[in-house]
């Protein structure tokens, strides 16, 4: 029972890392980027290639996944996404779905359709006893990283100069520009950071979630559930939502496997009917 709770918690934390980048682009920059999972997939596949072909250590793959996905984010943001900030949500949805389709086929072409496996370093394998329950070391490791990230992100957004500049740029880009804030640079950095976080989530999740070419489509729904249930205006909302979702999903699969994802979708729809701005979101004028 407690082990399931713990596994669900770890699962939820990975979902949070995967989704929080999206919460930044969607909640702060008001851009619906369904291709977010593709960045996560980039990180995951990078890990697979680096570890299995070149024998790079898993610990090095973690920053590498972040950096490569972030770099990919910069390139795509500068060339493509920047043209779509002012467009309608429908255009953004279509554009990013197009990107997802391309990413899925490209990975399929280069890596094959089978699920990719990685072997964790021995120091992360096995289980330890913690407060009387058996927990996997890797899951403990994941939770630790994710918690640190969550706190750091919250601090960056709320306490630093960059955070307040970002919030100003989002609230009113024109006025922010007039005050001398380099809005497009801030958006690029933020987007890159969000993509990097997705890549990091992909690295961490490669072992738990599994990597195959349909990853972006399969998990797109989970990301969107996290964001829409948690509300995209804060970081604590998605954090709580992803933990809830993780636990509900793991427990649901363990106790009532026949019901499948049914519960999650139902919860989502009910939450959205009752609170369209999300469980923890503030009512937003936009």
């Amino acid at each position, binding site marked *: 029972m407690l082990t399931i709770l713990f596994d669900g918690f770890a699962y939820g934390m990975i979902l949070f890392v995967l989704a929080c980048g999206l919460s930044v682009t969607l909640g702060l920059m008001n851009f619906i980027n369904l291709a977010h999972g593709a960045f996560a997939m980039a990180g995951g596949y990078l890990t697979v290639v680096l570890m299995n072909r070149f024998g790079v250590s898993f610990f090095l793959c973690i920053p590498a996944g972040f950096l490569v996905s972030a770099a990919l984010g910069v390139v795509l943001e500068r060339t493509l996404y920047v043209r779509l900030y002012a467009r309608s949500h429908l255009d953004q*949805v279509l554009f990013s779905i197009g990107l997802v389709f*391309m990413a899925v086929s490209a990975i*399929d072409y280069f890596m094959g359709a089978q699920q990719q496996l990685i072997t964790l370093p021995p120091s992360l394998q096995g289980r330890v006893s913690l407060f009387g329950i058996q927990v996997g070391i890797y899951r403990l490791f994941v939770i630790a990283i994710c918690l640190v990230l969550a706190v750091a992100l919250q601090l960056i957004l709320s306490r630093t100069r960059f955070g307040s500049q970002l919030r100003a740029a989002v609230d009113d880009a024109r006025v922010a520009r007039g005050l001398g804030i380099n809005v497009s640079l801030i958006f690029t950095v933020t987007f890159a950071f969000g993509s990097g976080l997705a890549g990091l989530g992909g690295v961490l999740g490669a072992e738990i979630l599994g990597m195959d070419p349909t990853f972006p489509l399969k998990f797109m729904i989970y990301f969107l559930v996290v964001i829409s249930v948690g509300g995209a205006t804060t970081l604590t909302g998605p954090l709580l939502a992803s933990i809830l979702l993780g636990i509900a999903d793991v427990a649901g699969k363990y106790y009532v496997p026949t019901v499948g994802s049914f519960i999650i*979708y139902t919860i989502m729809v009910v939450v959205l009917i009752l609170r369209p701005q999300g469980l923890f979101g503030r009512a937003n004028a936009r």
Partner: protein
Amino acid sequence: MFALLSYFRPDTATAAGTLLAPVRWRPLEILFWLVAASLLWLAPSKVLLLNEIAILALFVLSLDLILGYAGIVSLGHGAFLGVGAYAAGLLGKHGFTDPVMGLLIAGAAAGLLGFVTSFLVLRGTDLTKLMVTLGVALILRELANKFGNITGGADGLTGVVMGPVLGLFEFDIFGKTAYGYSLTVLFILFYVARRLVNSPYGLMLRAIKGNSLRTGAMGVPTNHRLVTIYTIAAVYAGIAGALLAQTSQFVSLDVLDFHRSADALLILVLGGSGQLWGAVIGSIAFKIMYDYLAAITPQYWQFWLGLVLVLIVLFGKGGILGFVNSSREWLAHRLGKGAAK
């Protein structure tokens, strides 16, 4: 002769003429339906593909009604297609084999679901609408999967028996009856939709899409209008699903898959949303492209699909129809200039 000419070219100088201009049938439109019907005899080897195109066009048309005219974004329109398909399939399987009655019942079933779920899409932002529609479609898919004893689950619903259409036309293995049947249904519903969007009601929908707050202030009951059009669109999609089930005599979970809804969106944007012909032309272009690409790269055709989508959003506002219209305007502009000189 003059009367005929003035029918096709109404006087756009007056307000009434401007409003009536899109209502009249243009020669090109009439020609299109004649060609589509004559293909039944001219291209008998292609009727299976043509049947798929007709059904797809009807489905995309239904999405156009809510997205192109009323501005409701949906990622779960496939839900209604699926409900219609399963309703028609189950009727056929359990001895209720009249196709037209099956079509009506399937449309009614999907319409009922559309009416009930329409209240969910009235609230919230675009994202909320996307998620709620997506969620409803996912729930339905899970349900169809779970109740395998009724729907056949992952194996699909087999053993659908169909009687002759109107008691006259037996379904044949070459799909001739199927295409004629689907095309007739498409034509009737297209005609109805054409009347609908050009009526005051259709104008109201476009006003709501433009600015729902202001339209509400003008005294239009916006929610009421949106519920109506969402229900109508659901009926349309349900009928498309029923056609799919009846002409293939098989229903699988695939009808409720996410890609159905995503494809419909894509096709609509490809053809040009907010115009009924956009749905039809988009479906034709999509199916031909799909056939062509799937023949070259069966596994990776999605890549090219994605590329087309990205390019359309970036450069091609308005899809194929938008391109045709703007190039026609450009040409007229150039010619006008030339004449002035």
